[in-house]
């Protein structure tokens, strides 16, 4: 078992999930409450990573983060090295790649809340921030939990974006999925099998938790 790859994978999934929740919650709140014409393009852009091949996304990220763009040059100027082929670059790629898995469940959760509660909060003087904090978030804990679980699991299993943006640097950017690829290339099928089994276990456990939550939710609401 490549413990270094396991450590990189778990760190990447945890950091990506945390950052995505911080980004996705206000973004989802904006999507469900706005009447702006920007809503459709913003929703389309946040959903795009589901449809795009990971290599396409990885390629554009590689270009964007490299010295060919002003963003990439600014990063190099600030830190002295490019963002690509680093753990931080991997986090940036994972955030974009898993964004729909964070935004969609939270948008669905917020949308399912009876608007009467939001109107009642506004009548009682609540600001938009308080409506989010005191009404939307407490009534969407399952959706937010589901989003966190999906982001974590999706990040654990990603391959294309990781390979394009992060390469294959042991201890820095080599994740479990890259380790499997390397093990197969080396004809180390037994090792690849153990690593693959671990990924299957992580994914199936996440899905069992997700469906158990959903079952508990529907059970509680049909008593």
């Amino acid at each position, binding site marked *: 078992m490549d413990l270094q790859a396991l450590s990189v994978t778990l760190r990447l999934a945890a950091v990506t999930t945390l950052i995505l929740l911080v980004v996705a919650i206000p973004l989802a709140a904006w999507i469900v409450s706005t009447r702006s014409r920007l809503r459709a393009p913003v929703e389309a852009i946040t959903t795009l990573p589901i449809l795009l091949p990971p290599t396409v996304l990885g390629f554009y990220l590689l270009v964007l983060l490299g010295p060919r763009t002003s963003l990439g040059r600014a990063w190099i100027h600030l830190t002295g090295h490019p963002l690509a082929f680093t753990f931080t670059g991997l986090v940036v790629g994972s955030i974009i790649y898993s964004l729909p898995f964070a935004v969609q469940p939270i948008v669905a959760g917020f949308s399912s809340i009876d608007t009467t*509660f939001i109107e*009642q909060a*506004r*009548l*009682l*003087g*609540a600001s938009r921030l308080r409506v989010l904090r*005191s009404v939307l978030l407490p009534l969407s804990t399952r959706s937010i939990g589901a989003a966190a679980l999906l982001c974590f699991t999706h990040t654990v299993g990603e391959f294309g974006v990781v390979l394009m943006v992060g390469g294959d640097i042991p201890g820095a950017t080599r994740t479990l999925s890259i380790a499997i690829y390397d093990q197969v290339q080396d004809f180390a099928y037994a090792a690849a099998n153990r690593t693959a089994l671990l990924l299957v276990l992580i994914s199936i456990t996440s899905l069992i938790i997700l469906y158990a939550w959903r079952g508990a939710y529907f059970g509680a609401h049909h008593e």
Partner: protein
Amino acid sequence: MNSAPILQAAIEYRRAGFTLNAEFTLRSRWTVLFGASGAGKTTLLRILAGLTQPSTGNIRLGVTQLLDTSRRQTLPPGQRKIGFVLQQAALFPHLTATENIGFGLNQWKRATREARTEELLNLFEIESLAGRKPRQLSGGERQRVALAQALAPRPELLLLDEPFNALDAPTRASVIEKLRATAVPVLFVSHSLADAWQINADAILLEDGHIAAQGPTRTILARQREQLLAQLGE
């Protein structure tokens, strides 16, 4: 007697084939907004509360201008000093009765907030329900908590959208008596002639989005009462 107006409103609202055109002044502490389903009662209340924007309008509550579309001036719902209770009490399901009542008081000092919540729990005789969440309350208990919640920030007008439909007659009478004790002016929507008649206040008769009449309940709704009695006598 011609007392000072509590509320003055002139509203026009057009949406999908429906037009609400209402100009009225509230002077009585209790006014029943009476009309058939679809007459525009709920829309009118939502416009007064600031939850629906009219096409044009001018609304004044006491000395406060709530809306003046000619000057593009509108106060948000939370600044209008209007309480609103719906037919289905909109209590926050994750909060206890006490937390629901205190929701609109978060800017108040803790001691004042607790005292006000306590006062309303006592008024509506729901002290024993203080720690319960809405799903643990009956329909009548929920409505009493909702009334306490709406009254907590000391509104200058209370809008009630058929909030007593689920209550039995004695509970309804008891709740109305408690509301009268608060001295807050009430605009009470009903399509029940019995309710409107018993409350014996001013009435506004709304028909197809227009105010057909306004005045003392027993004058304004006399024709409807005669029709009902004739139907019952058949």
